[in-house]
């Protein structure tokens, strides 16, 4: 098994992806980019499940990935529909301009 990538590398990649996604959600201003960052976070979690499942040779992590993909797709469908609704009512997807309610 000398030519396989060690699990730690997958985990580091997943952690980096997750942090990129998290920073993107918190910092980016374009609704669609924020949306993609959330997908990035979900996929980082997915990768973590798969990396651990591969290391342990057990199927739970693989199954988890299937379910996460399906749930993420359903979430993406509703999320995109909402982004379209925002765009149609405002004409913008800039988060800073989507602030009509006072604090």
């Amino acid at each position, binding site marked *: 098994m*000398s*030519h*396989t*990538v*060690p699990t730690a590398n997958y985990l580091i990649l997943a952690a980096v992806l997750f942090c990129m996604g998290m920073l993107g959600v918190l910092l980016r201003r374009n609704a669609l980019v924020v949306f993609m960052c959330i997908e990035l976070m979900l996929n980082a979690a997915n990768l973590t499940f798969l990396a651990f499942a591969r290391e342990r040779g057990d199927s739970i992590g693989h*199954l988890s990935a*299937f379910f996460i*993909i*399906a749930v993420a*797709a*359903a979430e*993406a*469908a509703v999320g*995109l*529909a909402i982004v*379209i609704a925002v765009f*149609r009512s405002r004409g913008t997807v800039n988060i800073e301009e989507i602030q009509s309610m006072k604090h």
Partner: protein
Amino acid sequence: MESPLTPYVPVAIVLFLAGAMAAAIPFIAGLLGPRSPSAVKSEIFEGGNPPIGSARQRFAVKFYVVALLFIVFDVEAVFLYPWAVNFQQLGWFGYATMAVFAATLVVALVYVWKKGALSWES
């Protein structure tokens, strides 16, 4: 005598080849291809018809609805693969479970259909 990066050598080769191809092909095409530009040729190609309007139009919302529905129904297929692979072992239990799953999807499809979300016209 192996560096920890050894497993990545094939990945690096693929990346290099992909990059090299992408850079080389337009160059080679420009070098080898005959060129005789004309007004008709430099027009935008739109299925043979004369192009109308800007390419950056807003798509009808119908398009998004169909795309969204496609994503959802397409991804559900992910559950069919593990079942198909283990069809023999799962037996009637697997069959019954997947039948319930598929029936739910059919109900969703009937709803979407009757709602008119699949018709492009109107």
